[in-house]
């Protein structure tokens, strides 16, 4: 799978990229803000986006998820340190594939990516 990583913290993004590779997928781009995510997705046509919710320039992962879903039919795996009920509800219209809490347990990310893979294939 081609994976777009949307994460504004460089170290975490690197780590996610490493894990994604270990799990047998390819990171096609890393974006730090909602705007970058939309541009990168249009350019690279990823299969799935790994989406942090607090992004650079104060932009929101929820907004980015909406744009990607509405305009590029791209679904997200949501990564966040604050996955409370209201957040999940706000995201539900954009049909996220999975939610992964931070700090990320690699196994959880692996499961989410497997879920994404079957969703993409289907």
């Amino acid at each position: 799978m081609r994976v777009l990583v949307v994460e504004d913290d460089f170290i975490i993004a690197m780590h996610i990229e490493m894990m994604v590779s270990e799990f047998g997928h390819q990171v096609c781009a890393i974006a730090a803000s909602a705007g970058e995510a939309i541009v990168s997705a249009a350019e690279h046509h990823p299969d799935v986006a790994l989406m942090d919710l607090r992004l650079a320039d104060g932009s929101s992962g929820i907004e980015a998820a909406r744009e990607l879903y509405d305009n590029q039919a791209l679904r997200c795996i949501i990564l966040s340190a604050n996955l409370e009920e209201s957040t999940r509800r706000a995201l539900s219209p954009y049909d996220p594939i999975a939610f992964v809490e931070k700090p990320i347990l690699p196994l959880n990310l692996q499961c989410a990516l497997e879920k994404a893979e079957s969703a993409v294939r289907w």
Partner: protein
Amino acid sequence: MVTSALQREVNARFGLLPNFFASAPDAPEIVEKLWDFAKSSYLDNPMPSLLKERLFVYLSRFCEIRYCIARHCAFLLGRGHASGDPSVSVQSIGQAIHLLKTPPPWARDTAMFLEGLETLPLPQDWPAVESKEEDWLIAAATLVFVEPARSNARNALRKALGGKSFEHLLGLLAFIRTAHYWTVLHPNFALEEDVKELLSVNEELARLLLEDPESGRCDISARLFAELVELRELNERRELEKAKRALEIELQQKEALLKEVNHRVKNSLQIVSSILQLEVSYSSTKESADAMRNAAARVLAVAAVHERLYTGPQVGCVQLDSFLPDLTRQIGQACDCREFISIDIDKVEVPTDLAISLALVLNELLTNAIKHAQAPYGVRLWRDMGGKLTLTVRDGGQGPKPYEGTAGFGTRIVKAMAKQLRAVLEPQRDASGYTIALILSLPAGNE
């Protein structure tokens, strides 16, 4: 006893000296003005004398001090001059009783007499004594007198009487109210001798005059007090609501702050964890990679607790069954364990720091089991009836050989955690494998 010029004048007008105008001997100038008020609004008021006196009697029902009602009833019955008018026709005790027994307007069909008043043909002269119209007028005047805020009775009276007569009526009401209040302020007025004599003549009249259940209806101080209490309660309610709102806002701010701190802690832990795991892949030697991997695994064990933190219903506590299974599988994956690990975790909620210690112990024990012993692996956690919590890690091996070199960092962590938790470590060997159990008493109050 008539002594002053004022008292002589009063005596001449009423044919006797009511104690009312002999009151406040220390400040006769006040009583002089009261007398002026009495003359302008009561005695010299152009309303018919008998109507004025009948109103005075009836409205005095609504005063706790019985002086006025008794005094004016006596006037009505010819003891002294009613409304200071010697020409007024005297009423009988039966007429007085009939008047006093007229039910108050709030016990009657208010709309009936108000509409009756409004439909009277204009110009309306003052109604005849004991006519239907007089009854309506007294009833409406009573409403205005007792509940001045009710505008419908006022409007009906104004319409029926015309502006000028209406103001005359209000002037009389104002004086009667003042007279009542004066007696409330001087509650020890003695009844005059003629009044006492009258009360002894007719028992029914005496009862009507002295034991009127409506007497408290117009107690000004009680009404004012009730209004004040109501106002204060309203204020207190407002204050309370204000305080409640402030508290809610404060609570929201605290929750937002907690969320923010929680977010930052989790994010920082993510960064630490990421750095360590990245270090593993950048390590040049196997030794340093292993060291980094161990460190990363330990941080991940702590992180696993934080991943579940604050998402539960109770801040500061963690549900062990919500993260220990994930952590167990995570440890298996990190150790490249291909074997099945059986997991059986009771639903137990513990304070965060205890959860972190347990996570660290589990990481060491399970990592050790996977590295040094063969399957089957198993992790169990349960709480027994006595409140003791037991965590066991089991493998298919025979356990460490005694005195196998110096204790590693992992062993030291387990021992330190056991000590910190006042727990005991119990190794157990049997034919099918080796189990190590960490047994501790749950902190008091932890159910």
